[in-house]
C-alpha cells in the first residue's frame, strides 16, 4: 500500500469521481450528463463487472435466467458516448479532499484525482459470528459472485437452510423450493419480514410458504453450523444447522440473510458524519457540505411526503431500494452541479416470492390502524395502513390495481376512506378522495 501524500488542492479540473459501481452510481453519472455536465466522470467499483441490477440475484439469477452481463444497467456504447469512464476491480482505500477537490487511492495504488466526489458505496451483508461460518456451502447473497456460487451449490444440494426470514431469505427460499429442495427458514423474530410489513402480512407469508412446502422456524435460536472435516484441517463442507438446544437440521447449503450494514468506511475516513449510513441532507449532501452520497449507504431525512409533519416524518432513515437509489442519485447529481433539487418521493418496494407478488407503497411506520382488503386465503389481498383518517401505506399481495391506486393517491397527497377501502368490491382508484 503506497503512502498517500497529503492532498494539496491541485486537481481543480479533474471532474467527478463516483465511488461505487451501483444503481445509484450509474444513475448519478447518467444524470450529470443529462443535466449538461461536460467535465470528466469516473465511476469506480471493486467488482469485476460494470454495474448491474442486484434485485434479480435472488430471483431470476437463481433460476438460471440471468447473468451479470444480461443484468448490466447500460451498454458499453452508452458509457463511451457519454464519456463516462467505468473502472472495475479497483477498491478505493483512502481519500483526501478539501473544498476544491482531492484524490482517492485504490488498494492497487491507482490514483483518482477529482474536483467533485460522490459516494454510492452501497451496503454489505450483516455478518453473524456463528461457529462454522467458514464451512463450504455457508454464505451470503449480495453480488453476482455470491449468486453464481449459490446457484452452483444449490444444484448439488438436497437440504437448504435459510437464516433470516426477510426479503432476501424468503426470495431465495422460494427459488430453492421451486426447484424441489427441502427448505427450512430460521427467523429469530416472532414473525417473518418483521422490519417491513404488518402482522397481517407476516402471518400470510408464513402460511403461504408453509403451503408450498417450506418449513419455517420462528423465534429460532441458531447456534452455528456443523460440517464434515475437510482435508488437511481445511474447513469442510456444511452438513447442518445447529440450534442452541442441540438440534441439528440437515443442510448442504446455508444462506444467511439478516440485513445489511451500510458501507461507510471511506466516509468515516473523510471525517463525515455517519450514523446508520452516511448522514446527508435532503439535497444528498454529506456533513462536509461538498461530498454527496446516495443509495443504500445514505442516511437521510425521511423523504416520504405522507409522513410530513409527524414525528416519523421528521425523523431520519436509510432506505434499501432501487427507487431510492435512483431518485436520490438524481438529486445528488443536481447538487454537485449547484442546481436546486430536493429528495421527496413516495417510497415503494417489491418482492417476488414463488408466485406471490408483494408490492409496498409508502412507509407504514407511523400507522395506528390497518384495513385488510380482500381475503388472504385467496392469496390476493391488500393491507392498508392508516394514521387516523389518512392513508399512509399499503402492502399489496397479487393486487397490482390496489398498489397502483395507493401509490398514485400518495403521490398526489390524496386519501382513500377506510370504510370504502375495506369493501373489496370498490375499486380503490374510484373511491380516492382529494
Amino acid at each position, binding site marked *: 500500500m503506497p503512502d498517500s501524500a497529503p492532498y494539496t488542492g491541485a486537481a481543480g479540473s479533474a471532474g467527478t469521481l463516483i465511488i461505487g459501481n451501483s444503481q445509484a452510481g450509474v444513475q448519478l453519472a447518467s444524470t450529470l450528463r443529462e443535466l449538461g455536465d461536460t467535465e470528466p466522470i469516473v465511476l469506480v467499483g471493486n467488482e469485476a463487472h460494470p454495474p448491474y441490477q442486484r434485485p434479480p440475484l435472488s430471483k431470476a439469477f437463481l433460476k438460471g435466467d440471468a447473468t451479470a452481463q444480461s443484468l448490466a*444497467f447500460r451498454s458499453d456504447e452508452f458509457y463511451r458516448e457519454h464519456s463516462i469512464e467505468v473502472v472495475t476491480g479497483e477498491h478505493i482505500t483512502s481519500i483526501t479532499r478539501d473544498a476544491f477537490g482531492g484524490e482517492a487511492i485504490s488498494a492497487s495504488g491507482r490514483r483518482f484525482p477529482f474536483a467533485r466526489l460522490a459516494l454510492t458505496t452501497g451496503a454489505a451483508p450483516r455478518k453473524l459470528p456463528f461457529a462454522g461460518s467458514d464451512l463450504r456451502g455457508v454464505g451470503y447473497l449480495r453480488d453476482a459472485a455470491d449468486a453464481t456460487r449459490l446457484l452452483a451449490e444449490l444444484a448439488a444440494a438436497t437440504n437448504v437452510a435459510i437464516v433470516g426470514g426477510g426479503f432476501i431469505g424468503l426470495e431465495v427460499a422460494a427459488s430453492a423450493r421451486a426447484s424441489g429442495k427441502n427448505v427450512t427458514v430460521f427467523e429469530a423474530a416472532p414473525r417473518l419480514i418483521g422490519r417491513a410489513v404488518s402482522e397481517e402480512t407476516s402471518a400470510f407469508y408464513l402460511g403461504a410458504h408453509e403451503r408450498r412446502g417450506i418449513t419455517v422456524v420462528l423465534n429460532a435460536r441458531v447456534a452455528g453450523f456443523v460440517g464434515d472435516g475437510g482435508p488437511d484441517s481445511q474447513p469442510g463442507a456444511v452438513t447442518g444447522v445447529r440450534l442452541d438446544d442441540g438440534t441439528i437440521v440437515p443442510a448442504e447449503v446455508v444462506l444467511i440473510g439478516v440485513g445489511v450494514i451500510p458501507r461507510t468506511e471511506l466516509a468515516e475516513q473523510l471525517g463525515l458524519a455517519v450514523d446508520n449510513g452516511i448522514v446527508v441532507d435532503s439535497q444528498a449532501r454529506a456533513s462536509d457540505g461538498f461530498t454527496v452520497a446516495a443509495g443504500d449507504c445514505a442516511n437521510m431525512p425521511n423523504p416520504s411526503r405522507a409522513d410530513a409533519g409527524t414525528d416519523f416524518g421528521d425523523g431520519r432513515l436509510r432506505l434499501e431500494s432501487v427507487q431510492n437509489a*435512483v431518485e436520490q442519485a438524481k438529486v445528488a447529481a443536481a447538487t454537485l452541479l449547484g442546481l436546486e433539487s430536493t429528495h421527496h418521493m413516495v417510497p415503494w418496494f417489491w418482492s417476488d416470492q414463488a408466485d406471490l407478488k408483494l*408490492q409496498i407503497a409508502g412507509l407504514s411506520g407511523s400507522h395506528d390502524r390497518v384495513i385488510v382488503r380482500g381475503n388472504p386465503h385467496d392469496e390476493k389481498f391488500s393491507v392498508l395502513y392508516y394514521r387516523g383518517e389518512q392513508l399512509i401505506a399499503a402492502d399489496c399481495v397479487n393486487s*397490482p390495481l390496489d398498489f*397502483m391506486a395507493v401509490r398514485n393517491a400518495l403521490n398526489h397527497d390524496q386519501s382513500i376512506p377506510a370504510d370504502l377501502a375495506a369493501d373489496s368490491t370498490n375499486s380503490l*382508484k374510484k373511491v380516492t378522495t382529494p
Partner: protein
Amino acid sequence: MPTVTYTAPDGTATTASGEAGDSVMETAVRNGVPGIVGECGGSLSCATCHVFVCPESAAFFGEREDLEDDMLDGTAVDRQENSRLSCQLKLSAGHDVFVRTPESQV
C-alpha cells in the same frame, strides 16, 4: 439487429439497437433513452416503462396478460388503446419497432 425508435412527446426520436429477445424497456434503459424508467427491471411491479405502440408495430408483439393489463390501469399518464408496458414487448429479428413515450412515468 432489430431497432426501436422511441418518440418523445416533443417529437424527438431516439433509435436504439437491441438483440432479438431483449425487451423494448431493456433496450431503452441500456442505451439511456429518456422517457423510459423501468425501475423494477422488468418484473411487472412498477409500471414505469409505459409506451404507446405505433400501429405498424403492434402486430410484432403478443397479447397483454392480465397482470400487465392491471398495471396499465395505474400508469402516470392514462392508458390508451395502444398502451403497453415495454418490459413485456420482446424484439424479434428483422422487425424494427416504433413506440411513443408518455409525458411522465412516475
